[in-house]
């Protein structure tokens, strides 16, 4: 049975959506209080969506822009988080590695992901290589930090029990360190993914052949507000779907974790 409260929440959500759309249409197209040059009417957004879905905009159709951005982020994210998690776990497991790697890491850590963009452009130009470098640095730092703290948060009795049972070598990593650090690792991965996505959009805004940031860039130059809204919505939906995907992987990898 659907509870009355859930029904009411759904009703309120739909009502809010309806009111927003109505006010939006009223303020823009119907009364013209907000000039169509500053903010588009809902119908214009639908038209822009049709245009980019069909004939395309900024050198490509919507799905090509999406595919390009999502592929780049996935590549950069997978490489960065693999190296990052490995380094974080090693730093967590060994005090020697921690002491060796920490100074370099302390230097990288406070630099915001977006600040890598100019450096990447100086070194690698406006192509995909620069984007992958930027994504790498954005995604690397959170995955190292969280894997490291994940290992250090494992409770002492677990280490003691595993030592008493003579667990060592590969088994120690596979059955003690990694499962113990997993919740924290996934927190890090989620932060990494968000940072990577934001940074890619920013990098594409600065310069790109195609991609969601390029839609925004082109629409901004053409003063085409409806297309800006389409671009922003695409950024949001893709980010949301990728986060959902990571959440799905998380429940697969950690079936024991209470939801």
């Amino acid at each position, binding site marked *: 049975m659907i509870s009355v409260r859930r029904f*009411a*929440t759904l009703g*309120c*959500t739909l*009502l*809010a*959506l309806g009111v*927003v759309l109505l006010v939006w249409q009223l303020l823009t197209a119907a009364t013209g209080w907000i000039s169509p*040059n*500053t903010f588009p009417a809902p119908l214009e957004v639908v038209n822009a969506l049709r245009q980019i879905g069909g004939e395309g905009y900024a050198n490509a159709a919507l799905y090509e822009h999406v595919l390009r951005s999502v592929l780049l982020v996935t590549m950069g994210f997978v490489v960065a988080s693999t190296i990052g998690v490995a380094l974080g776990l090693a730093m967590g*497991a*060994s*005090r*020697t590695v921690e*002491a*060796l*790697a*920490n*100074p*370099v890491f302390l*230097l990288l850590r*406070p*630099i*915001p*992901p*977006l*600040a*890598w*963009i*100019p*450096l990447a*452009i*100086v*070194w690698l130009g406006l192509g995909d290589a620069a984007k992958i470098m930027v994504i790498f640095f954005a995604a690397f730092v959170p995955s190292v930090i969280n894997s490291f703290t994940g*290992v250090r948060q*494992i409770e002492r009795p677990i*280490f*003691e029990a*595993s030592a008493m049972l003579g667990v060592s070598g590969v088994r120690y990593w596979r059955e003690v360190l990694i499962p113990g650090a997993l919740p924290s690792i996934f927190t890090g991965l989620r932060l990494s993914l968000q940072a990577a*996505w*934001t940074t890619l*959009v*920013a990098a594409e*805004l*600065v310069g790109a052949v195609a991609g969601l940031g390029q839609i*925004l*860039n082109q*629409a*901004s130059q053409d*003063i085409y*507000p409806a297309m*800006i809204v389409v*671009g*922003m*919505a695409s*950024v*949001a*939906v893709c*980010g*949301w779907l990728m986060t959902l995907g990571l959440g799905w992987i998380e429940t697969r990898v950690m079936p024991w974790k209470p939801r």
Partner: protein
Amino acid sequence: MLAPKLDSPRFWTLTIVGAAGFIALWSAAALSGLTTRAFLPAPWDVLLRFAQLVVEPFAGFTLLQHLWSSFQRFGIGFVLAVVVGIPLGLLMAWFRWVDRFVTPAFEAVRFVAPIAWVPFAALWFGTGIGGPVLIIFMGAFPPVLINTYRGAKQVDRKYIEASQMLGASSLRSMTQVLLPAAVPSIVAGLRISAGLGWQSLVGAELIVASSGVGYLMVKGQASVSTATVMSGMIAIGVVGIGIDIALRRVQQWIEDRRGG
């Protein structure tokens, strides 16, 4: 078993080895002649450039002036986020209908990366101060709202019932029951939001601004001066750390007061 802590001399030896190794590698790569020094400067080149930027104007201003204009924008955006976020969070926690009304819109907007507001920032404000402020606001606002809301929702039911029994109005309940109880959560949110706001600002300045550290870096990039770009990165990192330390102090101070 996790190894015990390293003793102090060994720890410091390893730390110095790590740092020295990094600097040596960097210097070797810069001096090897594989690339020009403008492309990959040596560490001391960056430090020299940093010192030079503090004294001589680049892209119109000295480094400190750029930092100051960045910081002003950051301050305005951050204060706006706090001024809107805290009351809205309290309202959402107190009135269920506000919660139901705002949450869907908020969730939809939250998934838009702050940097994706750049086109509208440019369209609405040109290169004025409003553009960067809008982007900082978009970065800094969500953590303030979420943490205020969560903190206010966790208030012990007893206090709310007691205040209602004593005839407190909604306004008084919000400001004198919910708000004080939510303070630790709010301050934690402020730290996150300051970090995100500062990051978003840098991104905004890369695109829409004619002063600020981000702008300095863009100009450095345009003249292929890696040392200038790296100086900008250092300045951003240092100010970011400074902001976090200041807020951590505030957090500590509040916790001490509440504990006593």
